[in-house]
């Protein structure tokens, strides 16, 4: 499972969570979850649960406040997947 695949999956997932006020421009790694995709902190909980299920990982609640952009999510998943693979 490489980073490109993870990125693709995160992008696809976020499309289903984007709110009514989401910026219609294409999603990139620098896209902001709240300001650009209209995803609030409650919905971020659901996104994390979906990612945990999809990649069989556990995302620590303590890191959630630091997940501000799409890139933050991709990096977090990528690093956890790598740890899982190596263990």
């Amino acid at each position, binding site marked *: 499972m490489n980073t490109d695949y993870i990125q693709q999956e995160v992008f696809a997932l976020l*499309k289903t*969570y*984007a709110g*009514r*006020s989401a910026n219609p421009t294409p999603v990139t790694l620098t896209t902001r979850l709240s300001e650009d995709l209209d995803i609030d902190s*409650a*919905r971020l*909980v*659901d996104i994390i649960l979906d990612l945990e299920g999809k990649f069989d990982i556990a995302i620590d609640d303590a890191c959630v406040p630091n997940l501000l952009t799409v890139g933050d999510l991709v990096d977090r998943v990528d690093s956890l997947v790598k740890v899982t693979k190596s263990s």
Partner: protein
Amino acid sequence: MYRVVVTGLGVVAPNGANVGAFESALRAGKSGVTLQPRMTELRMACQVAGTPALDNSIVESTFRESTIRVMNTSMMFAGLAAIECWRDAGFSYQPDEDSPVDWDTGAIIGTGFGGIDTVGDRLVPMTNAGEVRKLGSAMPEQTMGSAPSAFVGGLLGLGGIVTTVSSACATGTEAIVHAFDRVQSGRAARILSGSTEGSSVFIWAGFDAMRVCCRTHNDSPEKASRPMSATAAGFVPAAGAGALMLESLESAQDRGARIYAEVLVGAMNSGGQRNGGTITASNSQGAQRCLKQALSAAGVSGNSIDYVNGHLTATIADPKEIANLMAALELTPDTFPLINSTKSMIGHALGASGAIECVATVLQLHGGFVHPSINCEDIHKKLHGIQNRIPTISTSAQLSTALKVSFGFGDVNACIIFKKWGPQ
């Protein structure tokens, strides 16, 4: 005091999932009651119910994917009925549009049981299994008492009062009465009012246990709901939602809105669970007082009511309801108005029944017809005197004034008098 009119309708009913389909079904006497395999699996005595048949494409084209993810059936039915009502009243809704707040419109959307399907399917089993972390963020918004109104308010961007009311099987009519009061008093230009009830065995199981649901027609579902029949054997549980846009006449005329009917009055009370009234039964004195208060406030006499949409659930309470109507309206069997039971076709949608049946009432008033009350060819012996006032086929009728009544557990009563709009 402002005059109050109906400028929009929306419905998700077991025999029609939008207003056009519902009206056609009413005119045709089409039942929406079907066998429910899940009820059979669970060995419930009643295994039939009225549940709206919804095409997935309608749901997917009406709601955003992120919205569908957090809806239960109670919310979905409320949302579909409210959006249809909103559009019917002349307003626009696009799933992807972040519309501005409409400060002049509120929502009063009732429910009897709310998100009990979510509670039964997910909240209780996952909590008991120690999987609280996996519940996700949407549990409160799906299970809180005000879920239906909060959901509708968010979909449409409503900035007036947004609240949910609940009074058992009188809920829908109660919601519309509250809306009437607010618009009549000038506290709102418009209230999108109505009620919803989800499709869930967790709602129906309790009534099945009470032995008040029909258990004699599992092999012929469309004949199971038999209000006013000698062989009525209990109500058929149902689900759905109804919505009416109540608006001040001033506001409606200012924006050139189409007007279906005028709401003359709404009344509500309780029999106090005394004098024959209990948590489940109606105190006749209370029911009659409610009806008399409505007539008095509207300034109309009983003999000016052309049509009654009864509560009429197909239980032993049906003859009592007719007797209370006869007494309160001060009429005899010969002068009794036309009466029918929409539940004969759709079953008893509990908290949603009043709103769905108010939609039926307004459609009949507006369309000049009275729908058949099906499955009562073998009329109850106490109702022989009014047999010719109960249409068994769709009947053309130039109605002027219609009365909708609802009664609920808690010995609560609610009624509304509608008047046809336009030349009489």
